[in-house]
């Protein structure tokens, strides 16, 4: 309590002390440091720097805690939507199979990422997988293009793959995600980009702490027919009767477009969930780091304060004993 009183005294004297300390007047040791220009004999040990750091670290901790709670509430809202949309892509995979290793001339990689940052490493993971897929599918006659959803992937891919980027779409989550919006987006992509195979790279939401990078493949109708004739996974596609429409090709075209919009919808929702989950854990670890930093700074602060008080006492006592003789 005496220390608190001394500290308060120090603060009151502080404006008097600046700009020039008075030699004779032994001011409180908690005044701002004047090591460079202080006159001889007056030693100040500054705790101001440490105190400023403590204040800013405490503010950062409060902000990151608030961001974590916001991310948690957003996650709760979007998680139900994502879970409900999980049944959407399964029928297509059951019918057309999953063929990520298909060899086609025109590959288009659709990278789904977030617009905002501070969400851990999920966007870097998506970009790394996209670049690796580009490398995997490169060949003498093959070309691979990118369609980018989200600012973060755009920032990373524009740096070295600028000429391969076909389409960039940002601000996806300005309005709550809905199937209509995603189907318009899918329509846009299908109209403007020529493809034989679309590979959608996103982070599948497995749990609040685990996000699995996933790639879904959608083939164009011509490639579907080609693979069906070749046999393998799509071999028994020919055994299916086609109802409606004039030709099989027309139905396959509609089917491909519908498949793409459904798979996109699910992947965009899963990526949004992963983004919020990753942001939660990033902000949580950030708050914990800030707490650790605050503890260390508090120790430093106390040590500095006690050292300066001890110095002051020693000076007073040695001065008094010198006077006594």
């Amino acid at each position, binding site marked *: 309590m005496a220390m608190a009183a001394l500290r308060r005294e120090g603060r009151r004297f502080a404006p008097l002390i600046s700009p020039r300390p008075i030699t004779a007047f032994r001011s409180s040791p908690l005044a701002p440091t004047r090591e460079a220009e202080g006159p001889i004999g007056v030693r100040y040990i500054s705790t101001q720097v440490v105190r400023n750091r403590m204040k800013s670290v405490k503010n950062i901790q409060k902000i990151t805690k608030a961001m974590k*709670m916001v991310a948690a509430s957003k996650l709760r809202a979007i998680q139900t939507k994502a879970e409900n949309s999980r049944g959407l892509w399964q029928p*297509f995979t059951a019918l057309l199979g*999953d063929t990520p290793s298909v060899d086609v001339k025109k590959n288009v990689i659709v990278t789904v990422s977030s617009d905002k940052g501070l969400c851990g490493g999920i966007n870097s993971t998506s970009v790394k997988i996209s670049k690796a897929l580009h490398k995997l599918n490169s060949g003498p006659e093959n070309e691979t293009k990118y369609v980018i959803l989200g600012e973060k992937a755009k920032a990373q891919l524009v740096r070295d793959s600028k000429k391969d980027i076909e389409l960039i779409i940002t601000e996806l989550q300005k309005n709550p995600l809905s199937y209509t919006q995603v189907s318009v987006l899918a329509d846009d992509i299908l109209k403007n980009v020529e493809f034989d195979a679309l590979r959608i790279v996103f982070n599948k939401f497995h749990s609040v702490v685990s996000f699995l990078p996933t790639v*879904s493949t959608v083939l164009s109708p011509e490639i579907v027919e080609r693979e069906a004739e070749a046999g393998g996974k799509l071999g028994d596609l020919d055994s299916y009767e086609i109802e409606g429409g004039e030709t099989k090709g027309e139905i396959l075209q509609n089917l491909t477009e519908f498949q793409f919009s459904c798979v996109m919808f699910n992947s965009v929702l899963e990526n949004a969930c992963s983004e919020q989950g990753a942001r939660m854990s990033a902000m949580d670890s950030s708050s914990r780091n800030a707490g650790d930093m605050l503890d260390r700074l508090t120790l430093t602060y106390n040590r500095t304060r006690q050292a300066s008080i001890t110095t002051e006492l020693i000076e007073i006592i040695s001065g008094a004993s010198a006077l006594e003789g």
Partner: protein
Amino acid sequence: MFRQASRLLARTTTATTWRRSRAFSTDLPATPTEDSTFIESWKKVIPNMDPPKTPSSFMTPRPATPSSIPSKITVNFVLPYASELSTKEVDMVIVPATTGQMGVLPGHVPTIAELKPGILSVHEGNDVTKYFLSSGFAFIHANSVADIIAVEAVPLDCIDPALVQKGLAEFTQRLGTATSDLEKAEAQIGVDVHSALNSALTG
């Protein structure tokens, strides 16, 4: 006090999400199948990174084609925002294909059908549940599993007949005054859907 509130909130969110995360174990099938050719070719070109997952590792396994015709047909009816019916065993479904109402019984020939706006009826014993679908696709597989994917569906008793009449009148009028191709197409779609709704309610 703020700290207590935040701790409580964090505890409740993590508790609920952990509970839900345990429920995700039903997402991964018992035997996850992965595309081995993809993984091998990945490992050859990019040895340092783990290969990404593919949808086949998240698929719920499908029953194999039985040798004899089963007694029930398994129906999966999905919408973008919900799975209305998932692996429900029923006697018969009638889907509104573009070529007309199509009845599907167990042992039906594998079919891919494009759907037009109309009624989907699911027959289970003596109960019949009817939904009005906006459009979509229906796949009937050899193992007597029917997948119906629609963009929008409502149970029939949730449709208001007065609004249907009003919508039909409005779109017919818009079709009459439409100038560009786009407007004509939009108005035509509106007329189709509303007349299908109308016949669904009356028929």
